[in-house]
């Protein structure tokens, strides 16, 4: 008769009873529960302030980061942006968290003014002041180069070449390309900022304050 070996347990299962986390405000919790699509899972799922369970926000953050990287890759590979844009991003930190969007918004504001000036100059039937146009163009070229808008800057170079030869038709077609490139860049950068904003929100709610 062999002794039945007592299996030594691999671990001691002695769980403490789960402490019920007191919500800050019963009324608020009731409100949240009304709109919480996961309420059928019971109160064990910790909810972020937005009402989404935290594990889902983790996935959203990953997706957003992938979206952002894909967009940036596209912009760099197409030569729309160059390393100066990276320099701007490097200058952004906790002490200056909105640096890139601040500078880019100034760029949009200034560029639209300059493009309008260029168009009104060129559309003027009696246009002859290539010098004046050159001043606007140089300003636009300089600021585009400062934010890393490589493709726009290159179109400005072609524009300047046409202007140096007093080639009005050439200037007009360069201006059309410029307007198109500018619109495209503006849309893409807005998209980029939207993604970054969503990332900030997602990161913010991932670590809610403990009760």
């Amino acid at each position, binding site marked *: 008769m062999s002794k039945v070996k007592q299996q030594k347990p691999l671990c001691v299962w002695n769980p403490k009873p789960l402490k019920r986390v007191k919500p800050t405000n019963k009324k608020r919790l009731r409100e949240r529960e009304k709109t919480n699509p996961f309420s059928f899972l019971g109160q064990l799922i910790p909810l972020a302030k937005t009402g989404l369970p935290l594990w889902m926000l983790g996935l959203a953050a990953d997706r957003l980061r992938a979206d952002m990287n894909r967009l940036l890759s596209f912009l760099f590979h197409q030569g729309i942006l160059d390393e*100066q844009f990276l320099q701007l991003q490097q200058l952004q930190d906790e002490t200056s968290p909105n640096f890139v969007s601040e500078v880019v918004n100034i760029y949009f504001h200034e560029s639209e003014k300059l493009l309008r000036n260029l168009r009104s100059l060129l559309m003027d039937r009696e246009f002859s002041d290539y010098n004046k146009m050159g001043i606007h163009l140089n300003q636009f070229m300089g*600021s585009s180069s*400062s934010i890393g808008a490589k493709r726009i800057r290159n179109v400005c170079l072609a524009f300047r070449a046409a202007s140096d030869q007093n080639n009005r038709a050439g200037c007009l077609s360069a201006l059309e390309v410029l307007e198109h490139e500018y619109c495209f860049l503006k849309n893409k950068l807005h998209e980029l900022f939207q993604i970054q904003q969503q990332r900030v929100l997602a990161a913010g709610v991932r670590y809610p304050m403990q009760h």
Partner: protein
Amino acid sequence: MGNMATQTQFHVLAIDDSLIDRKLIERLLKTSSYQVTAVDSGSKALEFLGLNGENEDEERNSSVESVSAADEDHQVGVNLIITDYCMPGMTGYDLLRKIKQSSSFKDIPVVIMSSENIPSRINRCLEDGAEEFFLKPVKLSDVNKLRPHLMKGITTKNEMQSNTNKRKGSEEIQSPDRTRPRYNELEVV
């Protein structure tokens, strides 16, 4: 120890007529822990320095407002000037000349920035006293080149102060011309 400058940060005066470039240079300099004053024209820069184009001696004798950055005796001094070349009115080159002609500010290092790569322009600025010439867009690696020029200013200041105080004792004076530190006239071999 008492020779250390009273200001803990270097103060850089930046001049550029483009708002974007001003924001950029300001951020670049602040990231490198410099205190920055950014203005949009050469005339505003001269105003800040206390040089209003009038006779300079008159300026110094008359009551100087605390708004202007004065020389090393005052708390607020300027350790470096960085300016854009192409500006309406007074160009960066004009500003460089005015600063080098001023007895109180000619020792402040001046750096010129430009989006145009024109060798004759670059050479002319360097010959007339500019320490560096940066091509735009300016990057952090460019701003890192400023530190030796700023440090040189500190040691020159120390030298001048110790000469007037006639300090004795083994004080390390590092002069920009010499490569070895000198201890009280004795050269360390």
